[in-house]
């Protein structure tokens, strides 16, 4: 008995809700994961970010994967080291209204807002800067979005619209996760440099 393949199931990205977006740190050496723990606790105290904020989980002892998780009912805010790259991820767990493109834009706004809060947090030892020209999108649902070419085809229109807004029309290159067992994931990169502030303004 083994893991069940979903290779025969058609993707259904229109109903996809569990989506995670991640932005990457420009200079990882300026942030120790543990530095973020008090910041996340403070966010809970001051309700600094959207959602019912519950607790902070510390996984900074792990060499890869989530480092520090701000656990919320609607989504997790994660200082994430998956793929060996440190960044901030917003991982949605509860449904959002609207079509996929609208939902992606909402997730993007929530993520960028949290990213900007980290960038402007004076309690952190070094200046934290996120790259405005790189974003990762993961569909956290192997049933509705298996990691296959058909999912990419179905997902592209909404994603392209979202990315075009982020970069003011500049082109993006997409790299898809190759392991078919992994979640459907895309790394989007553009040559057009931008600060997080700029990207956030474009998203509105």
């Amino acid at each position, binding site marked *: 008995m083994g*893991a069940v393949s979903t290779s025969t199931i058609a993707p259904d990205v229109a109903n996809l809700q569990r989506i995670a977006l991640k932005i990457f740190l420009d200079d990882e050496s300026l942030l120790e994961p543990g530095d973020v723990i008090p910041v996340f606790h403070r966010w809970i105290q001051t309700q600094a970010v959207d959602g019912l904020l519950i607790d902070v*989980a*510390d996984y900074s002892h*792990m*060499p890869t994967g989530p480092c520090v998780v701000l656990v919320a009912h609607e989504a997790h805010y994660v200082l994430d080291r998956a793929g060996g790259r440190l960044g901030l991820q917003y991982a949605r767990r509860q449904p959002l209204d609207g079509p996929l493109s609208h939902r992606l834009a909402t997730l993007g706004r929530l993520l960028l807002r949290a990213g900007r809060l980290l960038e402007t947090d004076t309690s952190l030892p070094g200046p934290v800067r996120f790259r405005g020209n790189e974003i990762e999108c993961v569909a956290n649902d192997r049933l509705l979005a298996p990691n296959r070419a058909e999912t990419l085809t179905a997902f592209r229109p909404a994603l392209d619209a979202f990315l075009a807004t982020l970069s003011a029309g500049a082109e993006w290159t997409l790299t898809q996760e190759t392991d078919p*067992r992994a*979640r459907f994931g895309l790394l989007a990169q553009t040559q057009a440099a931008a600060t997080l502030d700029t990207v956030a303004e474009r998203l509105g």
Partner: protein
Amino acid sequence: MTWKEALGNSVPADLAREIDTYESQLALKGQGKIDDKVFAETRLRRGAYGQRYDNGQRNDGTGVKMLPFPSNGRTKGPDTVWDAPGMQRIKLPFGGLTAAQMDTLADLSEEYSDGVCHITTRQDVQLHYVHIDDTPSLMRRLAAAGITTREACGNSVRNVTACPIAGVCRDESFDVTPHAEASMRFLLGHPDVQDFGRKFKIAFSGCRQHACGLVIMHDFGAIAVTREEDGVEQRGFEVYVGGGLGAVPHQARPFEPFMTEDEILPTLQAIARVFARLGEKRNRARARIKFLVAQLGLDEFRRLVREERAALAHDDRWTAYLDGLPAYGEQPLKTGHPLDDESGSPTFKAWARTNVYRQRQPGYAVATVSLPLGDLSGWQFRRLADVARRFVGDTVRTTVEQNIVLRWVRESDLPALHGELESIGLARPGAGSIADITACPGTDTCKLGIASSRGLAAELERRLGEQIETLDEAVKQLRIKISGCFNSCGQHHICDLGFYGVSRHVGGHIVPHFQVVLGGKWVDNAAAYGLAIGAVPAKNIPEVVRRITDRFVHDRQGAETFYDFTKRVGKRALRETLKDLTTVPPHDVRPDFYRDWGDPREFGIGDMGVGECAGEVVSLTEFDLVGAETQVFEAQLQLEADDFAHADALAYGAMLQAAKGLIKTEFIDISADPNQIVTEFRSRFFDTQLFFDKYAGGKFAQYLFRRHARGERPADRDTARQLIEEAQLFLEATHACQARLASQPAVPPTGNPPAVAGRA
């Protein structure tokens, strides 16, 4: 499309039916048609556990705040909000895992949890922050991979554990894996295990001398033994019953020196029936089988079990698995081949020294994947499954030390295996060393946690990991185990240096502490349990480890073990070594002492406000509590000196003094007369429920009442030891009660007016 539709016939029919029923129960609960308590036990028996803050309240460091979950009053148990995240425990009998199952666990951790799989001290896997609405899909996906969560929690037979190196161990009598598996299959969902007052834990060990099976701390433990009968080797088990850790640990008693293989399952069934019939049901605190064995006496318990066994109707399943035993065994993926001693980099050699065990089968080894705090990410688990496919196939097991072992590694593959593990961040050396610490979830996610066991473990692992190459060899071998509270999920009783979380009220603040537990024994199947020698502020625990290990290196005689060292030097001397570390610096000098490891929040202070008058009276209480702590410690020393009567009297005296201290917060003129103390304590703190623990209710008070009612009957080793454990718990409950009282708004006391002064 749903997972139920997608998986279709991939889920075995029996499991599919059970999960369908469970899903229906979720729907009925939503309609208010199932009682909270009934539903709670229902989900627990499916492994769906509660988690910290699921009552909708959390101290954010500035006070206790409501968490307004959008549940509209819907609950999943008493005081448990529906939408609050929970923990899913996943049972892995004897820790066995296939590569495909690892893939599934990886997927589930990413989609339903926080991307992390946690290996527990009972060879289970736990996922945290799981929404209960996701649990049916999660269970179906597990079932399709051959895993059930049935009876992972709740009052039934929990995961059956066994040595992770069973079948490849150089010292075992024989491979106990098939017996562990058969026990699990036979008892899973069996009607005779559905009516217990508490859980029931089973372990199998292949030998007496090692620790792997931890038989002595189990409700039912079996050690593989052989004997010769008419020139033929016969296999059987040395069977123990009535062990358990928890708040009041008991060592298992020898039930039968040689039980033939074919008697294991019927005897387990007979024990289950006796436990279900005679075990305590109303008082959870005394409902484990250890209390029944103690109450009946071992001989009477044995007689009842044998009587029950004789009356059982024959069941073919008792012995069906035995026919397959001669052919039982794992098939190695590759032909064995020895490792050239010169092979590998220095990093590989350092890893191999601690993480590789040479199997009894020539050319093969077991490689331990040492997991920090038992955690690995979903991505790592999937990659580890690939590593398993490449090197060993489906021969992976979890361990009670929260690690994973890959069995049947061809020795000559070890350098390549190490390289693969390095590439996925799983080549941490030091498995089974002092830097490989066991810790329960503690305050991170457990509702009962008092202090941060994982925070402390992470800090100690970091410090000790940095020093590991320079530590004395004798120190490297020591084991540290940490629990977040006295319930001992971190197994703090059965190691060299044990710690469990407590709190102390200091100058209007609550300070995280850990009790230091010495005198435990990991080897010989957990042959000895340690006892607490004193509470130390959490922030001083790394220094406790340094001082005690330094003293061990300095004062060790020859090849003396740490256990023998602590016995020879004595707890009094070791406690003296730590004396200055028990002091808590003032808040304005060292505010970090008032925060726990890995947590920047002010520790449990909530909206505490302490009046001056209360502070004055509390200081008298503190005086009594210190005196009580001293008496408990003295009781331990008398126990070690085999003066059981004196130990018993001191433990009793400690409870009386602690109770007296608490009474002084309301009635300062309390006398030293035990009758008056117990009467006043009962009316002021028990009848009013002021002393009640949120989860344990009045059980700690009952320890005092029971001992007081017992009068002057003689004590033996077991009763004295138990009373010491109970006195320690009574003291902790007194500290907690005192802290609760101090945190309440100042109001005049109810009941009898104070004779001289009271809490204003």
